[in-house]
């Protein structure tokens, strides 16, 4: 199944197929950009991202470039302070959000279902990157090379699940618990 999905010729077929279908053009454009790994920053007014105008969230270009190069992703979340031990009320809320909005695509193991499994994610990604991916996914898929690599791998655009910054922080805490932190 996994090798089937990343098979290049199938991917090209998918692109051609998508070209014919005019609906959901945002997805198609994004799929194109994702596959070609072009970092396109000029498209600020894509319908459907209203209220999330990338420019207003990014600040000066240099700052966003700096964030991306440091692996913090792109979005409102500039820095996250983690506490030890884990905040258990956050973990509990994070689990409820996971069950409702994330579990359909992300396993708690390292198995990829629709998206990557979550096991180990807090060791390989910075907390800012995780929270920006959850709360600012459209821009992440357009601008962040790590997010784009994942799209190339999974070929399904991660949906905006309408998770607030506060809820994303709870999900992050749940991910830390999932990775065995105390």
């Amino acid at each position: 199944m996994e090798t089937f999905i990343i098979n290049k010729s199938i991917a090209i077929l998918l692109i051609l197929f998508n070209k014919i279908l005019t609906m959901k053009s945002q997805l198609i454009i994004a799929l194109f950009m994702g596959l070609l790994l072009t970092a396109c920053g000029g498209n600020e007014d894509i319908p459907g991202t209203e209220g999330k105008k990338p420019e207003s969230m990014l600040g000066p270009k240099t700052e966003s470039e700096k964030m991306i190069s440091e692996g913090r992703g792109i979005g409102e979340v500039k820095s996250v302070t983690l506490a030890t031990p884990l905040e258990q009320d956050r973990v509990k809320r994070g689990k409820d959000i996971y069950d409702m909005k994330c579990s359909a695509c992300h396993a708690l193991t390292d198995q990829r279902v629709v998206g990557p499994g979550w096991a180990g994610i807090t060791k390989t990604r910075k907390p800012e990157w995780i929270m920006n991916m959850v709360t600012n996914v459209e821009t992440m898929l357009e601008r962040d090379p790590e997010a784009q690599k994942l799209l190339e791998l999974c070929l399904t655009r991660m949906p905006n699940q309408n998770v607030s910054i506060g809820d994303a922080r709870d999900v992050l805490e749940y991910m830390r618990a999932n990775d065995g932190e105390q």
Partner: protein
Amino acid sequence: MKNLSLVLLVATIAIIGCKPKSGVSVATGDAATKVYVAPGTYDEFYNVVSGGFSGQMAIYGIPSGRLFREIPVFSADPETGWGYTEETKGMLMTSHGFVPWDDLHHPALSTTNGVHDGRWAFGNANNTPRIARIDMKTFKTAEIIELPNSSGNHSSPFITENTEYTVAGTRFSSPPDYQGSNPDVSINSYKENFKGYISFVSVEKESGMMDVAFQLQIPPLNTDLARAGKGPSHDWFFFSCYNSEQAFTLLEVNASQKDKDFILAVNWKKAEEYAKAGKGSKKNVKYAHNYYDESKHTTISEIKNEVLVLDPKELKDVLYLIPCPKSPHGCDVDPTGQYIVGSGKLAALIPVFSFDKIQKAIDAKDFEAEYDGIPVLKYESVLHGEVQKPGLGPLHTEFDDKGNAYTSFFVSSEIVKWNVQSLQVLDRVPTYYSIGHLCVPGGPTAKPWGKYVIAYNKITKDRYLPTGPELTQSAQLYSIDGDKMELLLDFPTTGEPHYAEAIPAELVKGNSVKIFKIEENNHPYAAKGEKEAKVIREGNKVHVVMSSIRSHFVPDNIEGVKIGDEVYFHVTNLEQDWDVPHGFAVKGADNAEMLIMPGETATIKWVPNRVGVFPFYCTDFCSALHQEMQGYIRVSPAGSSVPLTYSTGKVTKEAAK
């Protein structure tokens, strides 16, 4: 005066003499640039257009004429599942049972202080009398209320200035249907036993919830169209009527005998006082009230049993009749609330009545007669003046923001612009062909937005590429910015549009809902996360509590269903992103598919009638792997011992070999 031969003569003149000679329009100059809405940019107005016999309401952009959406209202719609899903069936319930179709003629957009507020659109069902309320945040039908003692709900759902009431008047009088009345009467006893009713349906200020507040019982006239007063005439409502002859057969001839019929002037504020003081009589009736609970994504449908009926004959000062020539149709009130325009379908002039003069005549009891116990005002005493020789067959009038009126003429197929004060005709343009209603943005309100007038025509003929005997309907857009009206655009319309309103996009688009929050979904069978997906058997009912997200269903393998079972697929869309609906269809379903919006739960009932394995799939292209979004349900014979199982992504060792 009026007889059949005159009707025929007028009709013949119309066909031979007045129809524009060719379909070639006279659009000139920069018309194209005035209607061009560049790709990715928005129209200036939403045009809310009745679907007529489609029973639905359609949303177009103006000035482009592009169709954005057809909102299911009174007609079942297998494309979306409206009227087919378990959640929406109740919206089409009536005292007659489930009614899957109606005839929607008039939208009315809610107003505050007479000005569009962008909250709701009301629509009337002409056939099985009802009023619907559409929520302009979701563009979905939120509520439908049936009207007792009513037939032919045509003069509806026009609204008062602050949307205090939406009204309904009977175009067809009939024997009342309250308990204790005898509806089993000879049609010949029309004058004795048939009644007309005007219903005032209150609209709750915050929620918009409707309730039949009171009804006026009137003589058996055919009340046709209506408008509320505004400003100085705020307390009044005006209804046109034909058939003051009280004919009940061959109305074409028999209801066209008298030189004048009436405009009914109703003092609704007074009637409201009487209703509150308990002056009417409560009648035992039966009518349905259905509304959609957005939190449960489900209809609440109830039958109500009581209505308060007021008798204007007894109450004396709630109803007066204004004589109006030749079978009046349109009855429109200008933005100042001072002038009431009557449009006689067979008239060759337009009478304009003055509200001040009406008040003076009432105060002075300046009546010329009584009609069935109701005072008739003197025509000359209440007349502001007549527009002379405007055209043939005036139907409806809308207003701009500069003191001008625009009247549609069916017989002479044109729009005529005239000045309300001076009554002088200023301009005329042909329509293609035989215009019915017309729309100026904000035209019926205290604050017309102006800019355009749109013609909704009854005849299409050669305007578009031919598509056999049945053609699309034809609308035309004209600019009214200058002194002369200028034809800009033809655009096709679905159903058969009657009335329409247009509202600035700015008043609506910012409120448009993008998703339903999954956290707030209180549907009893919602799967709020895949963990909650399951299959439950209750006797022969099998409830599949299913989730959907790009690009799979949970569960997608179901076994243990048997012949004789009723399967309910309750599908929750877990997406929380705009414009990612999922669809659901299962082989052999004898009802419909359904579309499920992000965060919503919808249910389709499926009764398998043969043994086998049946696929189901997502019908709304959702992702690159949309084609993979499918599943199977196995149906075994009655009495089979196959256990009830369900899963997604689980493969047995046996199958993996």
